[in-house]
């Protein structure tokens, strides 16, 4: 799938897919963002901090985050049955883990921040896209944060370490390494890896994914700045 360093969709090995972020796309949600990356279309919405109505989740000394990653039935080639499945439950959990370190919820005991990620169309890399969109939506909602978490994957295709796998590359490639970081400190808040990688390849892929995150981080900041400027006008 790679010829002379060029990938099937014409990208270079270390090139991201075209990425676009729009802030504040929903009226009801306290914060929201729309993200397109390649063929992915994602909407993230945030409610809260609000009183936790789920007693089992409530913590007496801090607010908590709850995430729900959800794919629209029409977002994939073969219609997906509505409702959660095992894959989406796992992604919801690790998305919450990925976002939590950036949030300052100590002043919101017994409250809950709800993050809803709706995948409108999926084309490889929706978990990273969802985290990237969700962090922008959290900022839009005015939740106190130390950083805007950003996510991106690297992987191995045709023996090469490449950035931001497309759906085709993810399916037919050898390995996929989605990560999320807090760009200010470089700390990793999400990391998964599927497929065989040598220690050296893993290290190279991790570096490349971090690079990708840093690039997307700029697009996040730009989008938030635009919204802020708009609201100034």
């Amino acid at each position: 799938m790679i010829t002379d360093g060029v990938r099937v969709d014409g990208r270079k090995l270390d090139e991201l897919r075209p990425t676009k972020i729009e802030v504040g796309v929903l009226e009801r949600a306290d914060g929201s963002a729309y993200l397109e990356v390649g063929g992915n279309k994602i909407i993230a919405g945030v409610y809260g901090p609000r009183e936790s109505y789920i007693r089992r989740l409530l913590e007496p000394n801090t607010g908590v985050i709850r995430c729900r990653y959800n794919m629209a039935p029409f977002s994939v080639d073969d219609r997906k049955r509505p409702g959660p499945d095992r894959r989406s439950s796992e992604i919801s959990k690790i998305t919450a883990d990925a976002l939590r370190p950036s949030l300052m919820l100590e002043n919101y005991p017994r409250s809950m921040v709800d993050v809803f990620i709706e995948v409108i169309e999926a084309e490889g890399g929706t978990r990273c896209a969802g985290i990237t969109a969700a962090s922008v939506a959290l900022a839009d909602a005015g939740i106190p944060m130390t950083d805007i978490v950003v996510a991106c994957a690297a992987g191995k295709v045709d023996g090469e370490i490449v950035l931001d796998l497309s759906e085709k590359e993810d399916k037919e490639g050898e390995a996929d390494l989605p990560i999320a970081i807090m760009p200010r400190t470089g700390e990793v808040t999400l990391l998964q890896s599927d497929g065989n990688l040598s220690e050296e390849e893993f290290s190279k892929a991790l570096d490349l994914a971090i690079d990708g995150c840093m690039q997307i981080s700029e697009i996040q900041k730009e989008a938030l700045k635009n919204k802020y400027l708009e609201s100034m006008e």
Partner: protein
Amino acid sequence: MKIIPEITKESIKDLIGNNQREDGRTIDQYRDISIETDIISKAEGSAKVKIGGTKVIAGIKLQVGAPYPDNPNLGVLMTNCEMVPIADPTFEVGPPNEESIELARVVDRGIRESKMVDLEKLCVEEGNHVWMIFIDLHVLDNCGNLFDACELAVTAALNSTKLPTASIGDDGLVIDKENTFDLPLNEKVVMSTFVKIGSEMVIDPSLMEEDVSDGRLNIGVTEKGLVCSMQKGGMGPLNKKEILDCVNIAISKSSELLNLIK
């Protein structure tokens, strides 16, 4: 449940009594409506509809499957509606509740009872293979009147749907995704929803108007001006004159709505 201060409730009712509304509309006026189609590449048909701040997406997925035994030569329609919790702070995660089931079923009956989709043309091989049309609604932002937004999204999505060519070859079913044609429609359908506030029936209610209203009436109307589906909802009763007046207004509004679907 939303608690609206009694004073807001009163002021909305007073306005309505004077044929005025909080957002400046008259009682028989819709908010701004926009429709975008073909927004999901992976769906055979799709549409995003905004009515004021309300936003819904309808996606159409097609699949060849077995017909119902009692209708061996008819295609199959299935409508599902997800009131996902991103759309409204009161929506909850979990299986569809009575509200979203009602929404999906009312929208579905508008499509089904009007015979909008020509199901007979969706038969590939009688008794064995027919097209199954999966209609999925995804509500993204609830600013009131989901019924009309959903019906409009479904009609626009079905109207944009491309059907692959399916035939029976020597080795069974052959689907040719390169050669598509328009989903066969008999006629289009739209819906107008009214709520009762004080003694007035108000079209296209905003969220706040829904919250202060006593009863609801959904009226589906076909391109030919026939009433194809109705549903009264909510606890307030309606009198006969109110119902007949709404039917009359819904029929006259239908052409306005149908014109938005290219």
